[in-house]
C-alpha cells in the first residue's frame, strides 16, 4: 500500500463522521473521506492520474476534476485518451489535434484556465521522431511501413505515447512537441488508456527498456556482422548460426518485413535511448509527491475488484494513491424506510384496493397489518443477505400502529364518488413503495460491495459521486459532478 501518510498528506483525508469509525450501522463503509478540493487546490499537486476499469466514468471524472480545478484558480490541462464524442465536444474538443486547446466557458475569475487535449498516438510518435532524428533519418523512419503500423495504434503504443505526452506536458525539461513548447501547467490531469490489462501504462517504460536491451534487437541490427558478439551468443545457444536465424525469420515473416524492421530499428536506434530515458523519467515523476493517483470505480462487484487490484498494483510500484472515486452511487431520501417495510406497505395498499372494489365495504382503517413474516419471505427471495440494510430501522421495526400516525383526516370517510381517485392514489403509492424497495435493494447491494472493498483497503480515502440519470455532456454537467465529488456521500434522492 502506498503509504497512508502520502495519501493523507496530499489529500487532506481524514476520518470523517467525527472520527468515529463505527458511525451509524455500517462500520465498514469508507471510513476515510477523500477530500478533492484540498487536493486540487494544493499547489504541490502537479499531476492527477485517473485510472480504473473501462466503463466506470474515468474520462468524465478527469474532465470534471479539470473544470473544478480551473474554476478554483489553477492553470489546468486535461489529457484525455478516448473521450466519448459529446463529452469531447463539451470540452471544445472537436478534433484530435494533439495540442492542448483552451476550453471555452470556464469561469476564469479565480485566475485559472482549462485546456484540454486528446491524445493522438501517431502524431505524438511522429513528433518524437521529428524532434530526435535529423531530417533525412526522420523521413526514412516516417515512411517505413513497419513504423506506420507501429505508430498507428498497435498494442502498447497508446501506453507509451500517453507516458510520452505526460512527460512533455509536465515541466520535466524534456523537449516537447513543436506546439506544446513553453506552456507551464499548474496541474495536469490524465485519463489513462483503456488498457487490456489494467495498468499497462505503468509497464511501458519497463517493457520498452527490456525490449531495447534485448539481444534480439542487437541481432536484428547486426545481421550483416555474423561474426559479432550477438552471433557468438547465438551459436552458444545451440543454434546453427545467425544466417539460419535470419533465414527462419525471413521465411516466417517474408523477406520484405524483416528488412523493413531492420531498417526501422537501425533508424530508431539513436532516438530509442532518449525515448527510454524519458519514459523512465516520467515513471519517476509519477512516483514523486506531486502526483496523485485516483482510482475510479463504480459500486459494482467487478469494478471494485478491479479497483482493489489497481490499489495493490500502485502500491507495488510505489505510486502515490490519493484515493478512490466511487461513481454512480445511489442514495435515497427515504433510506429509513427499509425494503421489507416498503413492500409490506405496498401489499397492504394493494389488498386495500381489492377490498375496496366490493361495494359498500369501505376500506378498513389501518388495513391488515403487514405480517412481517410474509414480507420477509417475499424479500428474501430477491435479496438473500440483507446485511447493512438496518440503519435507523428502529423507527419502523414494529408493525405500524393501526392509528394513522400522520394525524391526517381519513379519506375513507369521503363520499363514494371520491373513492375512484383515492384508489388510484393508493395504486400510485403502492407503486412508489415498490420502486423504493427496489432502490433500497440497490443501495444494500452497493453498500455490500463497498464494504468488501473497504475491508480489504480500509486506508484508502473514498469520494462518492451520486448517480445521474443520464450521461454528462456539457460544462454544467461536469460542474455538477465536480460538486458531487467534493461534497462526498450521495445526496438524498440523488
Amino acid at each position, binding site marked *: 500500500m502506498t503509504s497512508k501518510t502520502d495519501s493523507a498528506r496530499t489529500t487532506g483525508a481524514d476520518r470523517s463522521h467525527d472520527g468515529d469509525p463505527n458511525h451509524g450501522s455500517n462500520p465498514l463503509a469508507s471510513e476515510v473521506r477523500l477530500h478533492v478540493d484540498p487536493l486540487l487546490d494544493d499547489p504541490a499537486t502537479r499531476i492527477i492520474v485517473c485510472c480504473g476499469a473501462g466503463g466506470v466514468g474515468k474520462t468524465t471524472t478527469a474532465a470534471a476534476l479539470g473544470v473544478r480545478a480551473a474554476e478554483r484558480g489553477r492553470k489546468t490541462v486535461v489529457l484525455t485518451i478516448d473521450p466519448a464524442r459529446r463529452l469531447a465536444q463539451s470540452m471544445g474538443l472537436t478534433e484530435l489535434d494533439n495540442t492542448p486547446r483552451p476550453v471555452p466557458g470556464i469561469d476564469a475569475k479565480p485566475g485559472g484556465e482549462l485546456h484540454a487535449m486528446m491524445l493522438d498516438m501517431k502524431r505524438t510518435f511522429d513528433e518524437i521522431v521529428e524532434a530526435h532524428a535529423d531530417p533525412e533519418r526522420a523521413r526514412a523512419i516516417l515512411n517505413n511501413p513497419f513504423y506506420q503500423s507501429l505508430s498507428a495504434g498497435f498494442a502498447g503504443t497508446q501506453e507509451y505515447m500517453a507516458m510520452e505526452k505526460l512527460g512533455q506536458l509536465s515541466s520535466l525539461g524534456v523537449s516537447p512537441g513543436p506546439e506544446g513548447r513553453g506552456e507551464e501547467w499548474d496541474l495536469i490531469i490524465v485519463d489513462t488508456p483503456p488498457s487490456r490489462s489494467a495498468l499497462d501504462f505503468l509497464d511501458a517504460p519497463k517493457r520498452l527498456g527490456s525490449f531495447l536491451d534485448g539481444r534480439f534487437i542487437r541481432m536484428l541490427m547486426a545481421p550483416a556482422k555474423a561474426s559479432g558478439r550477438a552471433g557468438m551468443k547465438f551459436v552458444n545457444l545451440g543454434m546453427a548460426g545467425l544466417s539460419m536465424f535470419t533465414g527462419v525469420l525471413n521465411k*516466417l515473416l517474408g523477406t520484405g518485413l524483416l528488412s523493413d524492421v531492420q531498417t526501422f530499428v537501425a533508424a530508431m536506434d539513436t532516438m530509442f535511448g532518449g525515448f527510454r530515458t524519458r519514459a523512465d523519467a516520467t515513471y519517476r515523476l509519477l512516483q514523486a509527491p506531486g502526483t496523485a493517483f485516483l482510482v475510479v470505480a463504480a459500486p459494482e462487484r467487478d469494478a471494485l475488484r478491479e479497483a482493489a487490484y489497481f490499489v495493490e498494483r500502485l502500491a507495488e510500484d510505489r505510486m502515490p494513491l490519493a484515493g478512490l472515486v466511487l461513481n454512480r452511487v445511489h442514495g435515497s431520501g427515504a433510506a429509513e424506510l427499509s425494503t421489507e417495510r416498503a413492500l409490506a406497505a405496498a401489499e397492504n395498499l394493494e389488498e386495500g384496493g381489492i377490498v375496496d372494489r366490493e361495494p359498500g365495504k369501505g376500506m378498513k382503517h389501518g388495513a391488515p397489518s403487514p405480517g412481517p413474516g410474509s414480507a420477509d419471505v417475499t424479500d428474501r427471495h430477491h435479496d438473500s443477505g440483507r446485511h447493512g440494510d438496518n440503519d435507523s430501522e428502529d423507527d419502523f421495526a414494529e408493525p405500524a400502529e393501526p392509528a394513522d400516525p*400522520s394525524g391526517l383526516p381519513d379519506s375513507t370517510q369521503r363520499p363514494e364518488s371520491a373513492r375512484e381517485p383515492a384508489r388510484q392514489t393508493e395504486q400510485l403509492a403502492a407503486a412508489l413503495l415498490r420502486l423504493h424497495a427496489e432502490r433500497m435493494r440497490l443501495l444494500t*447491494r452497493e453498500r455490500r460491495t463497498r464494504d468488501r472493498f473497504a475491508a480489504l483497503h480500509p486506508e484508502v480515502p473514498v469520494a462518492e459521486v451520486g448517480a445521474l440519470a443520464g450521461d454528462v455532456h456539457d460544462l454544467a454537467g461536469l460542474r455538477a459532478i465536480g460538486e458531487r465529488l467534493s461534497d462526498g456521500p450521495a445526496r438524498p434522492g440523488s
Partner: protein
Amino acid sequence: MTGKGGTGKTTVAAALALALASGGKRTLLVEVEGRQGIAQLFETEALPYEERKIAVAHNGGEVHALAIDPERALLDYLQMFYKLGSAGRALKKLGAIDFATTIAPGLRDVLLTGKACEAVRRRDKNEQRVYDAVVMDAPPTGRIARFLGVNEEVAGLAKVGPVHNQAQAVMRVLKSPETAVHLVTLLEEMPVQETIDGVAELRAAGLPVGAALVNMVRPQLLDEDLLDVAESDGPGRRGGTAELGGELAHALARAGLPHADRLVAPLLTQAREHAERVGLEREQRAELAELGLPVYELGLLGEGIELAGLYQLAADLRDQLPPPREAA
C-alpha cells in the same frame, strides 16, 4: 463478442457459449486478453493454455474454454511450421518472442485470431467439426475492427511466406458467413454510441456484424400511466403537487407507515428519476433499432454474476436465439 468496457462482454460471451452448446453441442469459449475473466466467471482456477471442458450446458452440451497466451501461440506456430523445438526456447531467451508478441505490430493479434480460427476449422478423424461454435471474448468495441482486420494489414506487411498465407486464411474465415461479430451494450448513451460507431467500422472493414446484445436490462417498475404521473409530479387532472402529496401521505399512512408525510417527496423524486431513466432507455432502444440488427435483451442480475446467474442468462439467450444454423 465485443462491447464497450463495463458492459459485461465476457459474461455475455460465456452465456452465448453455454446457450449454443445446449442440446448436446460442443462449443469453445476463447479468451484473448489474458485477464482470466472466464476462469473467474466459472469459478475455477486460472485457465492454462489448453482447451479444457469448463461447463456442461442445458440438455447435455459441453463448453470448453481456452485462454490464448500469445507467447505460447507463437511458439506453437514456430513448432508447427519449422519444428523448431529447443530453438524456440532459444528464441525466447533472446527476447525474440517478447519482441514478436508485444512490439511487433499485429503479430500478437494475428496469433490470437489465428488460434481461434484454427479451432473453428479443426476436424476430428471423421471429418466432423470438433466444435459446433467458437465464441471469442474479443477486445472492446473501440479496437475490434482493427483487431479482426489485423490480418489484412499483416498480409500487406509480410508480403510472402507462411505468415502472409496464414493471415490471409484467417481473414477468409473472419469475413465468411460463418463469422458474426456481436456487440454487447447497455441502454446508456455512451455504450450505445460506441456500438453504433463499432458497427459502422466493422461494416466498413467488410466484417460480418451479428446482433446487438443489450445487457443488464432493468425492469420497468411503473406502468405508463404512473410514469406520466411521476414525470409531471402529479396527475394533471387534479393539478397541483400539493394535493397529490397530501393524498399520497394519507395512503402511505393508511398502509401503516409512520411519518408518511416525510416520505412523499423522496418517493416522488425516485419515481421521477425512474421515469427519466425509462425515457433515456427508450431513446437508446430506438437508436439501436436503427442499426437494423437483431437485438437481444438480457436482464440485470441483481447480485453480480454468479454461476447460477450465468446459466440464467444462457437460458434467456437460448429463448431468444433464432433456430440453430450452421454456426461458426
